[in-house]
């Protein structure tokens, strides 16, 4: 049965009414009307629904909403703010450097998988600011793209890595 749950998403607190076993994805999409995380498989196989939970890429389609109570959830929409906090920037940029790089590389085709691609790449660059191409491939390997845009995603992650290393707090 539904109960009142407090969750923290994109630096705001929300009280939602949901059965505790409801996957976080459905709460983000239907209660908070966020468009970043989206349904792909419901099986944690594709990465379409990825969010950051305390900075760690997490599949929201198999994560019960009750499991993120007391934790900080960041979605695609919250990445610029999350990035500004990590880098202690005075101003929140309009886009996370990974988002900007995806644009600059014109990497996107249908773009449905880009939520997960951007979330995962942002996590990667936070942990490893200068990944090798092999490290990028390994880190991103759990995220599928049906349009076949992997090569440009790799280039975009490399571009974002360069851009981020030039950013001063």
């Amino acid at each position, binding site marked *: 049965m*539904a109960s009142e749950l407090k969750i923290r998403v994109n630096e705001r*607190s*929300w*009280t*939602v*009414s*949901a*059965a505790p076993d*409801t*996957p976080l994805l*459905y709460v983000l*999409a*239907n*209660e*908070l*009307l*966020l*468009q*970043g995380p*989206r*349904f*792909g*498989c*419901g*099986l944690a*196989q*594709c990465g*379409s629904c990825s969010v950051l939970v305390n900075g760690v890429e997490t599949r929201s389609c198999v994560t019960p909403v009750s499991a993120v109570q007391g934790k900080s959830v960041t*979605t*695609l*929409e919250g990445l610029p703010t999350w990035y500004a906090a990590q880098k202690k920037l005075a101003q929140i940029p*309009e*886009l996370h450097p990974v*988002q*900007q790089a995806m*644009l600059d590389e*014109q990497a*996107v*085709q*249908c*773009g*449905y*998988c880009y*939520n997960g691609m*951007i979330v995962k790449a942002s996590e990667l660059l936070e942990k490893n600011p200068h990944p090798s191409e092999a490290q*990028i*491939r*390994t880190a991103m*390997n759990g995220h*599928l*793209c*049906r*349009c*076949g*845009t*992997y*090569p*440009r*995603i*790799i280039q975009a992650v490399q571009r974002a890595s360069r851009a981020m290393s030039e950013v001063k707090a």
Partner: protein
Amino acid sequence: MTLRRDFLKAGGSLVVGFQLRDALLGQPGPVVRGAVAGPPDPKQVDTWLAIHADNTATVYIGFAELGQGNSTALLQVAAEELDMDMSQLKTVRLDTNITPNQGGTYSSASIQRGGPQVRTAAAEARQALLQMASKKLDAPIDGLTVSKGVVSAAGGSVRYGELVGDKPFHLAFTGSAPVKSSASFKIVGTPVPRNDLPDKVSGKYVYMQHVRVPGMLHGRVVRPRGQGAYGAGAKVIALDETSIGNIPGARVLRRGDFVGVVAENEWNAVRAARQLKVTWDSSPTLTGSDGMYQAMRAAKTDDRIVVERGNAADAIGAAPHKVAYNCRAPYQAHAPFGPNCALADVTADSALVMCSTQDVYGTRGTLARILELPVDKVRVQYYEGSGTYGHSCYDDVAQAASLLSRLAGKPVRLQFMRWDEHGWDNYGPAHVGEVRAAANADGKIVGYEYDGWQHHWSNVETSEQLALGKPAAEWQPNPAMQVNPLCCGGMYDIPHMRLVNHHVPGLGYLKGAWLRSPLDLSFSFTSEQAIDQLAFLLKLDPYEFRRRNIKNDRWLGVLDAAAKAANWTARPAASNLSKSKTVTGRGIGMGTHLASYGAAVAEIEIDKDTGKVVAKHLYGVVDAGLVVNPGNVESQIGGQLVQTASRMFHEEVTFTKTNVTSLDWASYPILRFEECPQVTPVVVQRLNERSTGAGEEVMAAAAGAIANAFFDATGVRMMEFPLTPKRVLAALARG
């Protein structure tokens, strides 16, 4: 704290106002765009574009943005003719009450068919605008110049917006206005960045899966996990509604053998669909994947001679070098990354259906039939979903949402689950290809025969079949579902040729439809290996051998460009065989999809111990005539090369005698980052040639190149794809 309902009241961008529905009952009177059912009259310029007072324009386009960038490219065409900036132009979503009917967005047709229509309409508008400006400025038309929608003469200037400002042109679209010559193109032919991408990376882009309306229910369909034979559909033996009694607000809706559930809460709908106890008829209706090719080959077929020139059998029989291959190609799935979704609001006398169809007018007609409504009471709006690559489940989900909405008496949003999409797809049909070819001692191909077996596409979607008992039926034949010369030897100059199509009656097989570059990968895998083998028998370099046998300049152009991009050096195939565990090979291939010209080179690596094959670098060349946006086409070529690698190495629909068993990304794997090849896309720009398709025109060539690279590396020909480790190890063991 903000809850969903507050958002809905506030009417955020996600929420589609349903006042639109009132327009369905609109009375004749002053024309308000969208007030009446379309299609609008294509012979009126106003159907195609509107000039606004702020000196911007809206271009009404009948093609769907599927992620291929055509919504940018078609605006480039309009901007060029109008002498406006890209920033001054926008387009609108496809809507059967608003946008013109340009036919479906398939066969890579948006630029091929849509480009000239948009171009001539814009030219017609420009001519009218110049006439108005000439009067206003009291200057002869010949002396006017236009830049960014501002018309200038010696004595002054006037903006388009001032001339018509949101008023209709009321001008017949004659198609006679002069269009610009390619020499003066400023925007067409340049890599303008795509206009849909900023919102796609920020999360603001509204995909179909995001659309919500007030008062809607969430629906899910309930079907057996994985389809059986198309003709058999699915039959309910027993259904226990009490089995979901513990799920709040969940209801079972049923019509015939069509079963669904709805609930206010989406997770409850998902749970209910999973939990509902339905006993399905599980009689075996299929051959099983193992017996499929044999059954297809043995089927009583409808045969049609596609090409007959000279006497191929005799020419092959008399020639010194000959080859005969029998190849097999599996069913492959569209498998859009996000399962299809639709939202329908069906009332007693009207319907509004939002979905991701490739053809809003086609879908409208089918929905009207199913809902027993007049066509003009059904309105279909297009929202982009996840890439579809052909006829995935978008029509099926739109029908299912409409049926559920009618049964529920409320708007219903329905998204398929992963197993629905994978299990009930209209797959790209399996194929058996038999090729025989021969060359003379001079290295000229003298005879070629190709026989192909496959079934046609499905013409009735599962929802209609199950709900209304409409019998399964196949499409009437068209060139995209049959053996055709463009991938079967037609690029070569061959005096004796015979191509025969064997139509396997499809009702005992899986559902079928067009899957990006339909059948072409299968044709090319078979045919290009035979061509390659003739070169091998003659001890000739496979690129040089192809050059000798091609007369057409454009085929030669793409072939040469592919060889150049890959730094091809001449040597016969399989002349560098190595005994090491890891071997590499390179191959070349040609082919396309019904139009355009494609050539590719593949460099691959094979682990002979594990049987794993990886493409290291793929080069793809497309000549699609005038390329409006070379950046988009490069992106499309890159995607096609990666998707081809995925289809050649991994993708295969599996099924037992009762049902499909490849239902998710574990049982239907696709290519991942770690195996992704480097790609080199090459666009052959031909500014003075008619535009043809570019979204699926190099996959066939790449499939052939990969197969030939395998032979170069191992000296072994693969007769079936995908080249899975098991199949590779078996082939290497046979030698």
